[in-house]
């Protein structure tokens, strides 16, 4: 037993100290008829060497992004990850710590969370941020619940061009609290939220308007108009943003957003089949902080007057407030938030701006090339790092063919919206090269 130090002799000594003779005596409180009378039916144990073999074989059954060129996005993105990050987060003091309940021996985690809160607040131009959420989707749902709580309204407006999985999850979170989700349609020509289509009678009933910048389709919304509309009805503006896009795009705070959420998995975290990622949650003023879900770290001093950090404003949380808590969230995504913090520190303002700029330029380049090759961009609006392409063929079949050339094609949208049956969502990050894109276009052109 490599992880269990007790030897049979030590077990004997310890049992004797307690006044027992057998390990089985330890479980005398469990009614005999309930005990499992056989070994668990599990595969035979594998020694470490065999384990690495077996798991390696499973890993090799997957086509990984190092072995192909990917244009998949739709909520998870192949961004460049600096090598040094994994070395830092693998330090045992970070990796093997719990939530920092004992602040005096947890300053490393606490200070790094304080840094995360600071950098997220700065990037989003908001007043404060929490320690992290599970992912962007759950952060969005919690933002909607918080907006209802703050405004005492029971309807939530959400742009229909948000990630369909996020919308579905939002529906799950809301319907169980008897809150109505109102999806705001998008214009099928531009791909943009059609705020003019919304019945103004609905306005005063909406706790918030949730809008993505960019949308699921990569299109960039006219946030100013949407902000003015929801503000005129005294609802909150909730923005779901791509943190990398904020290197170029106007920040939620600059639009007067009340809550900014998003997925920060793209900041240095491995894509790992979609998880763990990390969500962020930021608010525009200190009054809203007290309604915010999740852990929050605050700065304070010790008894000698030295600066230190603690978990704070815990009166919002489940372990104090139980059923009156702002959320049930407890464990969040601290190590992924640390990853994002290190990523932001390494790239800095120049690096984030450059990353956003490369995403923008490369996306524009591929879209141009595909249009020149006779394909049609489905929506007219400007895009950031993703766009919808339309062609009269079966994209799933095309993706099969692309795979033979080591390309992962875009995400066929018929999987989420039957009206977009002939469309595919193509993502281009800074990791793609001109040569990769040119060959991709050549392949598709050849199959027309």
């Amino acid at each position, binding site marked *: 037993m490599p992880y269990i*130090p007790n030897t049979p002799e030590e*077990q004997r*000594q*310890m049992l004797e100290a307690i006044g*027992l003779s057998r390990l089985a005596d330890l*479980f005398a*409180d469990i*009614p005999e008829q309930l*005990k499992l009378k056989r*070994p668990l039916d599990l*595969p035979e*144990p*594998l020694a470490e060497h065999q384990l690495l073999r077996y*798991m390696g074989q*499973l890993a090799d059954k997957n086509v*990984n992004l190092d072995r192909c060129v990917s244009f*998949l996005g739709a909520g998870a993105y192949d961004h460049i990850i*600096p090598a040094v990050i994994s070395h830092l987060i693998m*330090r*045992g003091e970070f990796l*093997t*710590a*719990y939530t920092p*309940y004992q*602040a*005096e*021996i*947890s*300053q*490393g985690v606490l*200070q*790094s969370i*304080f840094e995360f809160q*600071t950098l997220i607040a700065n990037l989003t131009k908001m007043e404060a941020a929490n320690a992290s959420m599970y992912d962007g989707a759950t952060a969005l749902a919690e933002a909607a619940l918080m907006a209802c709580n703050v405004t005492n309204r029971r309807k939530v407006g959400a742009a229909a061009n948000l*990630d369909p999985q996020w919308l579905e*999850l939002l529906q799950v979170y809301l319907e169980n609290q008897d809150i109505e989700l109102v999806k705001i349609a998008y214009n099928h020509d531009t791909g943009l939220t059609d705020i003019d289509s919304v019945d103004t009678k609905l306005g005063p009933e909406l706790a918030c308007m949730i809008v993505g910048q960019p949308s699921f389709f990569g299109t*960039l919304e006219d946030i100013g108009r949407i902000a003015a509309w929801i503000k005129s009805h005294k609802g909150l503006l909730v923005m779901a943003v791509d943190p990398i896009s904020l290197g*170029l795009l106007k920040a939620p705070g600059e639009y007067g957003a009340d809550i900014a959420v998003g997925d920060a998995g793209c900041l240095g975290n491995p894509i790992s*089949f*979609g998880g763990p*990622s990390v969500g962020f949650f930021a608010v525009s003023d200190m009054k809203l902080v007290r309604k915010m879900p999740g852990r929050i770290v605050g700065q*304070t*001093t010790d008894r000698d007057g030295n600066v*230190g950090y*603690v978990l*704070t404003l815990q009166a919002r949380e*489940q372990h104090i407030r*139980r*059923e009156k*808590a702002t*959320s049930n969230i407890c*464990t969040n995504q*601290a190590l992924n938030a640390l990853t994002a913090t290190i990523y*932001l*520190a390494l*790239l*800095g*303002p120049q690096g984030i701006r450059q990353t956003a700029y490369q995403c923008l*330029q490369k996306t524009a380049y591929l879209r141009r090339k595909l249009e020149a090759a006779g394909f049609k961009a489905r929506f007219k609006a400007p895009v950031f790092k993703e766009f919808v392409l339309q062609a009269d063929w079966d994209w*799933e079949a095309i993706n099969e063919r692309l795979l033979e050339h080591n390309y992962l094609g875009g995400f066929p949208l018929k999987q989420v919206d039957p009206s977009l049956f002939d469309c595919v969502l193509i993502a281009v990050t800074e990791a793609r090269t001109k040569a990769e894109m040119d060959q991709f276009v050549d392949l598709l052109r050849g199959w027309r």
Partner: protein
Amino acid sequence: MLLLDMSVPGRQGYTLPKLDVDEIPITDLIPEDYLRESELGLPELTEPEVVRYFTQLSRKNHGVDVGFYPLGSCTMKYNPRVNEDIAAMPGFSRIHPRQPESTVQGALQLMYELDRSLAEIAGLAKTSLQPAAGAHGELTGLLIIKAYHKSRGEAEQRREIIIPDSAHGTNPASAQMAGFIAREIPSNERGGVDVEALKAAVGPQTAGLMLTNPNTLGLFDENIETIAKIVHDAGGLLYYDGANANAILGIVRPGDTGFDIVHFNLHKTFSTPHGGGGPGSGPIVVSEALVDFLPSPIVEYSGGRYHLVRPKHSIGPVKAFYGNFAVMVKAYAFIRHLGAEGLRAVSENAVLNANYVMHQLKQDYYLPYDRRCMHEFVLSGKWQKEYGVSTLDMAKRLLDYGVHAPTIYFPLIVEEAIMVEPTETESKATLDAFIAAMRAIAGEAKNDPEKLKEAPTRTPVKRLDETKAARTPVLVYRPAK
């Protein structure tokens, strides 16, 4: 010194490849008024500075790798490093969640095999791996309970979730989030569910019961069969909070004791690291009758292939994609490494270690429930309170001994609670050192109480002012210009 204090304009810690496509003026691509005007507010640093900053930070942090971490209900066991290597394999860490199923058969197989293993350990039918943490599993399980009652036309009437007063705070908070009313019932004198109170609480309004077994006192509820019968007879379902599952692996299965839904904390029982507060993973396993309500998608095997499938009456997704996949990889590696015999040894040794420490400390600290414990136990600091010393003071003093303090002031039903969970990965020598430290502190409480009130003194910072932090919150660093 924070990152922004160290920032020097012009420095950069990472260089991107040169942009290799023709550039178009940015305002031809994006309307000008969509562009950011404000500064990004990020630090400008080079890689060595970043490395040294975070390495120094790490040195101010206690972890399982550093020393003993007997934090009750958190199962701070050793986190095997081979699992990290496995999760970092490109075949796991570099796969996209929207890839065609044919290209991720290994990942789906792993999820399916983990599902089968967890179902066997729980004694139930089918797993959803989607929940990201224990509390998230609770919410998911409660939504399934709701969907189940709805399918029987009883959702309107069954609004109450019964929760013992010893429960984790997440239980009532999750019940509220799922749109239920949390109804608390008291514990009996042996620390278990008060069966009479339960009988009085159940009725046509009962949706279910949430129970941790062993409970947060570390005690196995001997009446579990009776409890299950009362709840089931009233038409409710039983939810098992698996935070304490480290006590029962291969010993007793929640499904066999009457539970309908179980969540496991992979980051507790199955050895994946907590990372300073996540990522966790809180899969739920349900009985046959509830499989159709599981979150979407689940993994099925048919025709020689693994598939992502939406259950017939799924409650919908509770997280983006499939859950915290990398955490699943680590937990599955742990299960495959240990096998049935190893997992049983985990629980046997976890329970042995807890009983050993409890037995050695009950002369020095008040033990409110003096009976055999499972993987953890709860002491009370009330004897020491007479010397004007609080449990908080003693916890802080433990830090000076190089030990992380136990969970304190929880469960709420024990005055000045001290909840100790040693786990199976600690040696007798470590336990003996802890026992000696706890005894020394009990002595100091009596003879030198001031010492405890000043503690800790050997930590990177001394006792921190939490009141100040909450009264005048400073949550973001804004350097003076």
